[in-house]
């Protein structure tokens, strides 16, 4: 029984990991198609090359997509972290009324199906003349990414010692100085993690951009979508592999931030 469960668990973990691992060697193919050739299976060095990676980093479309993803992602991450930090502080304060309602509203973009959101935003943006503009895409991504920032930052505020804020104001610091010198340093790891997760959310978003963006705003996932629909070239796998490594980086960064956040919590408790 115990062994059967263990085998089942291993199969489950393999199901999670294998699809991502399968594409990594394939992205280094020297062939034209996304199939493992007999030479690749035999580990013949000539069957492998980095040509698809070179193609991606020299291709005008991919470069534009990468620039757009960075610009839109960073802008949306900054905005959603700013709004998200404020909202998380407001939601964590004692005395804020109707917290349940505000939380539900703020988390709504996570629950409403993305295709419904995309339709609604398209309809709203066509009145506001925001279709096909960077402003429009950044606003939409800010709304979509903010819940992630709020959840991350609020989790760290749950362990926050509000006596420190009270102490700071008793000692004569105004609210802004208190925030800058007391609150922010303590929640900084969570704020950084929130910004990273917001960026990842924006980088992952395709459906809304597909509805409201123009060619000019095409991002990496949009370029992948075009590739998946039209011509299956191993270049997509090179990009997908880079994105898997991006996910690894995010995982490690978020773990580092979580440990730091824990360390801060421990320190404040000891102090």
């Amino acid at each position: 029984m115990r062994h059967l469960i263990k085998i089942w668990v291993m199969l489950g973990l393999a199901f999670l990991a294998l699809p991502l691992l399968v594409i990594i060697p394939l992205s280094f193919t020297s062939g034209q198609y996304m199939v493992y050739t007999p030479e690749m299976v035999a580990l013949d060095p000539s069957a492998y090359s980095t040509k698809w990676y070179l193609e991606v980093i020299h291709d005008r479309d991919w470069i534009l997509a990468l620039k757009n993803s960075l610009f839109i992602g960073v802008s949306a991450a900054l905005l959603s972290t700013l709004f998200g930090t404020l909202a998380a502080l407001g939601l964590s304060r004692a005395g804020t009324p109707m917290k349940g309602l505000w939380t539900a509203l703020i988390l709504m973009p996570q629950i409403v199906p993305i295709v419904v959101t995309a339709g609604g935003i398209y309809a709203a943006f066509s009145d506001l003349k925001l279709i096909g503009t960077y402003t429009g895409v950044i606003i939409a991504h800010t709304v979509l990414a903010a819940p992630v920032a709020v959840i991350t930052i609020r989790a760290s505020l749950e362990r926050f010692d509000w006596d420190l804020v009270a102490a700071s104001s008793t000692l004569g610091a105004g609210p802004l100085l208190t925030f800058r010198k007391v609150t922010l340093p303590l929640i900084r790891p969570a704020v950084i993690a929130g910004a990273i997760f917001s960026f990842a959310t924006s980088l992952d978003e395709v459906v809304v951009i597909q509805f409201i963006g123009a060619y000019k705003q095409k991002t990496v996932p949009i370029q992948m979508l075009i590739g998946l629909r039209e011509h299956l070239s191993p270049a997509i796998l090179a990009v997908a592999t880079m994105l898997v490594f991006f996910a690894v980086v995010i995982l490690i960064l978020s773990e580092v931030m979580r440990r730091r956040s824990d360390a801060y919590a421990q320190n404040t408790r000891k102090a």
Partner: protein
Amino acid sequence: MAETSLSRAPVRTVSWRPKPSSAVGLCLIAPLVLLVILFLVLPLLRFAFLSVDNINVAGALSRTAQAMKNHPAGPVPDDAVFAAFGQDLARDPEGVAKLAARLNFFEGGMNSLVRKTTAQLGKIEPNRVGFITFDKRWGEPKTWRAISLATHSVIPEYYLNALDMRTSDPSSAFSIEAKPEGQRIYLRLWSRTIFVALFVVSVCTLVGYPIAYYLSKARGAVFTCAMGLVLLPFWTPLLARIASWQVLLESNGVINSILVGSGLVDAASRPQLLNNLFATVLVMSYVLLPYAVLPTYAVMNRVQPSLFSAALTLGASPLRAFFSVYLPQTLPGVLAGGILIFVLSFGFYLTPELVGGPSGSLIGNLIAYNFSQSLNWGLAGALSTMLLLVIAAAALLLRAVRPKPARKA
């Protein structure tokens, strides 16, 4: 340790806390809440409004509506109504363009019929015979069913269409009939979406529960590795995951190559793994599996292991101890994960679009189709509103079973 707690105690007692003002908290929340209201809540409300709204079109038909009221007739009206309809067509070209597009949603072919008639209006006698001579469709009851429907400012038609139904007699309220056999699409899509959602929930629970259990027992490097395997797909952008499944499932793809290479399957009869319902269910289960593992793991982490061993000591078989002690304790996590997966899979769009083909598409795909290709925003709005209602109901259920946030001792 004792020192610190001693030195801390007096601080606690004299700590001065200003009475927290509600205004500051609200001001901090306001920017984000306003953003969400402006760019999500209001657009969704407008969508809901579009799904019943017919004011502009009804306005373009005002004279026809008046004439219909004064001269009630059979399925095809009399001369007075035809004359009024002719005046309406001549009166407001912009309104007529909207009217033609709208009528086409109620009855196929109406768009071209109205446009053609409007263009030639001068040559048509403004009476019943004149219109029918110009095009015999003006003498058909279904044409006038659509026009009569369009004279109302608020219409339930899109909601009925979303359930493969329609108004049979627009002059009387609540006369509803099923659409003819060949035009039914949506009921099949709704039931398919529910079936897929439930199926994905069961797959994810069956695969996810043991993984969560394993994670809650694992320590050190084993834990880090296993948790990494769960979180890696979770953080990998969706399109990269879909791309890898396309590589695996293609007819020349990795799985088929292995099947053919190992001689299990003849090269000519490779199974079709992509662009069908199977691919939709498989890839959706893959995408949503972490949502089953993580909440269950969080709950398992807080379960007292002593209770399970107590049950064993008291003579319960491991199986009995599992079903009557461990499972009930971890059930909130399973339910939370299950409902979350149900909610998320109900609105899936991109995955079925890319791996599902026609037989694997879901209600989300029809929303996108009606919105951006058929430009039938009313029907897209009705489908969206119904989808949101299902999801809201499930989300309320989720709130009821959500495990309390973990507290570190």
